[in-house]
């Protein structure tokens, strides 16, 4: 167990060093976007992602149910066809904390992520994609019958 942990530390340190080199200036691996995740309004969350100037794009596909009977488990999958996609964020516009997740893809991972989120009420689910330093977005409405935040 202990040597496993040490191995992880080594891997993590390596990953940090590598990502630090690749995206100089960015915060590096595993730095949690506290202001973004603690934003209570959709607009603030977007601003704290740095995506205030995001552009609507048809090259982002969101797979989500039209109607979610159980707001505690809403499956969301996002695929980006935008070249050089660096990260994909999932935002439930009317959640108490709208930003649900950010996925940074690198080293051959396809610009795709699938996750299940909680939704408090019917709202747009918005994907925000960062590619070449620019932000693109697409949205899909999900109707929630029973909220999943309580």
């Amino acid at each position, binding site marked *: 167990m202990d040597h*496993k942990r040490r191995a*992880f530390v080594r*891997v*993590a340190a*390596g*990953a940090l060093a*590598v*990502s630090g080199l690749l995206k100089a200036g960015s915060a590096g*691996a*595993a*730095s*949690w*976007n506290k202001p973004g*995740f603690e934003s209570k309004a959709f607009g603030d969350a977007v601003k704290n992602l740095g995506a205030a100037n995001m552009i609507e794009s048809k090259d982002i596909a969101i797979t989500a149910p039209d109607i979610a009977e159980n707001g*505690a*488990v*809403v*499956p969301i*999958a996002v695929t980006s066809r935008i070249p050089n996609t660096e990260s994909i964020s999932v935002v*439930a516009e009317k*959640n*108490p*904390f709208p*930003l*649900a*997740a*950010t*996925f*940074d*893809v*690198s*080293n*051959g*991972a*396809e610009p*795709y*992520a*699938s*996750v*299940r*989120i*909680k*939704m408090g009420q019917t709202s747009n689910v918005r994907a925000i994609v960062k590619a070449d330093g620019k932000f693109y977005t697409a949205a899909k409405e999900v109707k929630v019958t029973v909220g*999943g*935040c*309580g």
Partner: protein
Amino acid sequence: MAEPMRIRATLQGDVADVRILMRHPMETGQRKDAKGEVVPVHFIQSVVVTHNGKTVLDAQWSQAVSRDPFLGLRVKGAKAGDKITVTWIDNKGDRRTDESTVAASS
């Protein structure tokens, strides 16, 4: 305390379809228990997935991710036998690492 993850990686052409199921309560900090007391917020903040030691996905999560989280990703250029390692860290500093190998498509 953390229970093992279930990781399945299956080749489809040269792309590994990776599916990860973690065990975690993912408390939002908004739920009240039977006594009416707020259950403290407790959720996975960071998930790192590596393919043969290279980071392919670095995810940051909020408490909005569902309980017992599911994560799906696709890794290009993968081969059968490649190593997929997943590590998560939650807001209390608990962490867990599990690994699996890419299986050939059946």
